[in-house]
């Protein structure tokens, strides 16, 4: 389920949200990454790349440049 995850990200300060009215007149909640969220994304990416590179070396595969 997507929305509980977004909710938790927001509680954690990684995303921020804003209610905006759409063309249809209904309100809709928009989410965007906060400064902390950008930092967390960068750290997360680095961690997964470390795991990825470790496995590539272990299995002798050339790591894909991402």
């Amino acid at each position, binding site marked *: 389920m997507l*929305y509980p995850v977004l909710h938790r990200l927001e509680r954690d300060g990684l995303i921020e949200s804003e209610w905006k009215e759409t063309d249809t007149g209904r309100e809709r909640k928009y989410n965007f990454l906060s400064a902390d969220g950008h930092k967390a994304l960068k750290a997360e990416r680095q961690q997964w790349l470390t*795991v990825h590179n*470790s496995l590539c070396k272990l299995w002798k595969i050339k790591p894909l440049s991402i």
Partner: protein
Amino acid sequence: MADRSQLPVQIMENQTPFDLNAAIEGWRNELAAQPNLAADDRRELETHLRDAIAEFQQHGLSGEEAFWLARRRVGPPELLGEEFVKAEPVKVWRERAYFIMLFGQATGSFEGLLSAFREPPVGSRTRPDSRGEPDILDILCRLRRPPRPEMKKAARDSPPFL
């Protein structure tokens, strides 16, 4: 026998036309019964449900089909309540960081173990894919040298009782 032949007819007759507003109202009540969902959360979830219904209807689905599909996409109300308060995020992150560290160490020592059986030694390996950044695996391998394989070999070659 007679009952069985009448059954499909009865179902057709009993079927009431689907009322989308009533269905959404029912869904809203289900959501309201969840103790963990604040009013603002419920309001948000309802906008998602309505957006999804509108989207599916634009793709040609009937109101009923669109409702059930949207309900499924947003998530069953009884599970949404649980998910919203699930595991403190800090705890999840800590667990994941621990897993990554453990995993990095495990592959590091495993690689160290493998490289101990072949030349050249760990520190002087040529790495064509290296782009000059410090390499955590190399550092771990240097820190965690496995026992030398020669020791085991020597122990195996010498007769145990002599």
